[in-house]
């Protein structure tokens, strides 16, 4: 390839005294899928924000197709041919508008035509523009779906919407920041099909992911960032034994890999302890069959299922934050019907919800405060919060989970996505938990942290808790669980000890019904 689609020279970026990017040189060729890898906090998202005009105060230069461009606003970047899908999906949708209006939003906000006709909002044109956008992705969204409020879309459909919007204007470079962290394998595969087709058409793709299996399947080249510098640059097929140390540094040694070069080596299975949670006749979804299920203490139960299969419903029902369509639950032999999350927490049931920005983080709150919120009762005397104990707990959690930060008083909003996730998970992984429900706990965390979080979950199980990990990713579940349940449309299609079941069986049970492309 002669000139690169996009080339970066000497990119640097600081937040205060913190140098997050330092002299990054990178060429991305047309028709190339480049994976940008790195541990949590390595600077990947920051590099992407520089590229997409979010951080105009950076050092270095950016050239698109050989011409130097100043990316001083997101609009400029898009006009220059760089389309970005940011890590936080919600930042990409405009609330209060319909799906169609969102798809056509760039035309609405910056119409190509001038004059009075650009002021009027023509419903028919919006629908036409939206349909074009959707067709690029090969989505089978009906007009009825397009007319819905965008808030009704689930996170994975919202992800696809944002991607469709990015592709409408035929960019030179498509930037995807962890696009699959909220998607199931089938949904991710659908996304990859689109990306591959775009690559054939000459699009350059910069793609951030912590899922190395996906990188193997999709990327032509992988660049590793570590502490803001490029530490490795290689072409497919990738040698993970070389790339992982470049990503994790000395931490790599603490995370040995198994035969496939990515997954963990085999480990001992924890035998089922006594029954902690007993579900009888529970209907997770309005039309799903009644479910009888026992969850055992002392082991990790993995629940695999697509979005909408009833995973979150299972968790929220036990946590008192939603109610099932029917059925009863027992906790240690006593009826368990918490009326509120507060009641569930008192009973020792903890839930890490799946959407960290929407359901767990509080804007402007420090790490220590975020961690202590559910446990303020224990942390206060006569109603007064004991702030030194709170700080000490925050500090110890930061150490225990390896949160990359200067102090436990840092605003959670300043953390990288993966480090936010560690805070959110770490908050509920406390001694004395009886039932620990982890809904998509590995979303956006790097390989090392994924092992760490998995290890902490297993420790909690070893200490006697019933741990439930819910995920759309088969490998994530197999990596951490002792028993695997597959959930399809609210029904269990497979229930087996992890040690006795091959991966293919799980995948087969999991894909029993087609995923379907319409929002549920």
């Amino acid at each position, binding site marked *: 390839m002669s000139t690169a689609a996009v080339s970066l020279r*000497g990119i*640097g970026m*600081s937040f205060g*005294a*913190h*140098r*997050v990017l*330092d*002299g990054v040189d990178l060429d991305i060729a047309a028709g190339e899928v480049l994976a940008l890898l790195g541990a949590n*906090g390595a600077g990947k*998202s*920051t590099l992407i924000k520089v590229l997409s005009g979010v951080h105009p*105060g*950076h*050092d*270095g230069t950016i050239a698109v197709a050989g011409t130097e461009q100043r990316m001083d606003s997101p609009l400029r970047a898009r006009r220059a041919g760089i389309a970005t899908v940011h890590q936080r999906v919600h*930042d990409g949708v405009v609330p209060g508008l319909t799906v169609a209006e969102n798809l056509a939003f760039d035309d609405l906000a910056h119409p190509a035509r001038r004059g009075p006709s650009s002021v009027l909002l023509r419903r028919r044109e919006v629908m036409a523009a939206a349909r074009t956008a959707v067709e690029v992705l090969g989505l089978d969204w009906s007009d009825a779906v397009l007319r819905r409020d965008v808030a009704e879309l689930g996170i994975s459909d919202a992800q696809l919407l944002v991607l469709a919007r990015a592709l409408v204007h035929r960019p030179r470079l498509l930037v995807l*920041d962890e696009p699959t962290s909220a998607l199931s394998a089938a949904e991710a595969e659908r996304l990859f099909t689109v990306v591959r087709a775009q690559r054939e058409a000459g699009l350059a793709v910069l793609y951030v992911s912590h899922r190395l299996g996906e990188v193997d399947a999709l990327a032509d080249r992988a660049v590793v960032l570590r*502490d*803001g510098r490029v530490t490795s640059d290689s072409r497919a097929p990738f040698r993970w034994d070389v790339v992982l140390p470049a990503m994790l*540094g*000395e*931490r790599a040694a*603490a995370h040995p890999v198994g035969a496939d070069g990515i997954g963990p080596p085999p480990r001992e299975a924890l035998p089922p302890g006594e029954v902690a949670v007993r579900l009888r006749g529970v209907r997770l979804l309005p039309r799903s069959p009644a479910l009888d299920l026992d969850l055992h203490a002392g082991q990790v139960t993995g629940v695999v299922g697509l979005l909408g299969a009833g995973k979150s419903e299972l968790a929220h029902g036990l*946590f008192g*934050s939603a109610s099932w369509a029917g059925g009863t639950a027992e906790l240690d032999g006593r009826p368990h019907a918490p009326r*509120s*999350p*507060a009641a569930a927490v008192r009973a020792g049931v903890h839930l890490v919800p799946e959407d960290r920005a*929407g*359901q*767990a983080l*509080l*804007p*402007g*709150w420090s790490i220590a*405060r975020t961690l202590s*919120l*559910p446990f*303020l*009762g224990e942390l*206060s005397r006569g*109603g*007064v*919060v004991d702030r030194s104990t709170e700080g000490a707990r925050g500090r110890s959690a*930061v*150490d225990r*989970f*390896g949160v990359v930060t*200067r102090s436990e008083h840092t*605003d959670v*909003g*300043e*953390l*990288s*996505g993966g480090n*936010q996730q560690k805070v959110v998970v770490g908050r509920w992984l406390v001694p004395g938990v009886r039932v620990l429900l982890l809904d998509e706990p590995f979303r*956006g965390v790097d390989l*090392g942290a994924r092992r*760490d979080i998995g290890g902490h979950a297993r420790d909690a199980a070893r200490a006697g808790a019933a741990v439930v990990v819910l995920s759309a990713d088969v490998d994530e579940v197999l990596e951490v669980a002792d028993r695997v349940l597959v959930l399809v449309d609210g029904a269990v299609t497979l229930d087996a000890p992890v040690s006795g079941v091959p991966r293919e069986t799980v995948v087969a049970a999991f894909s029993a019904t087609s995923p379907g492309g319409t929002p549920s």
Partner: protein
Amino acid sequence: MTSSATTPTTTPAPPGAGSRVSPGLDRARELLVRYGFIAVTIALIGWFLLSEPNFRTSDNLYGLLVYAAPTAIAGLGVTIAMTVGGLDLSVGAAAGFAVSLAAWTMVVQNQVGGVAIGVVLLGGAVIGLVNAALVVWARIPDLLATLTTMFAVMGLKLVLVDGKSISSRMTLDDGTTAPGRFTEGFLWLARGDIGPVPVPAVLLALVAVAVWFLLERTRHGRLLYAVGANAEAARLAGVPVGLYRSAAYVLSGVLASVAGLLLAARIGQGDVSAGNSLLLDAVAVALVGTSVLGRNVPNAWGTVLGAVLVSVMVVGFSMKGLPYYVQDVAKGAVLLAALLFSYTLSRRRTALPGQPAAGGAE
């Protein structure tokens, strides 16, 4: 993870590659955001002190606090409503209602001041409960709900007093003289002193410390802020969201009626128009307070400081002979300055109450 990964590398930037905004400027901006507002207040006080001999008297300095007290106390109520992400537009009406209710209780019902105080505080709590029911139970957006309450309460006040201001020993509709009057004890609220300090100033200090302590030091304050920051996240952390929202509106209603008590005692009669201007002042002061100290969240000291600044301006400019309508322009300018500090200069992107804050790295 090992500790090596928890300390971010801070490599010195190569020459010429420093970030475009110099650290010095950054620091200056930070200082401005944090202390700019206080500096403006101090500068203004200094200017009045030097140029107006009357401003210097200790009577006048206490007078500033006395003048600020009703606004500040109602503003503290608004502050609490803002911590849960709401806004209470009914505080002015609640204070006005308190004025008439106090007068009616003492003058028409011939009760002592203590009873009037109790009735008024109860009335404020009921208004707060109505707001809470509308916002939490009926799920009406806070602005609309409290606006509705505002109109209802203003109307109710006029019904209570037949649209008339109530004064001691006034002549009633049936030609008789009203049996009661504003008692000495009640008037003491606005006119008395404790040692050298006027009662309203003491009351303001007590309420401010109590609200500060509640919000900053107690578990309940933390939970109020949590509800305002992200209600769903608070709920999933086990916070009884509806309860804390309700409590915030009740407290707001009670504090508004305390402000009304001070107004009633200051005026010495049940003026039907009292409290009308309090709404805008209280909300403005709470908003200004949000920006003071660069906290970007509603907070007690910020609100008190905002109220003091407004009263410094009103008192100072009156001494300088500025007409009252020019004072309103000055108030607007202060609000603008505060908003510039917190929204334009602050690097942290902020959110109004009720909206999720933007920004943050991922």
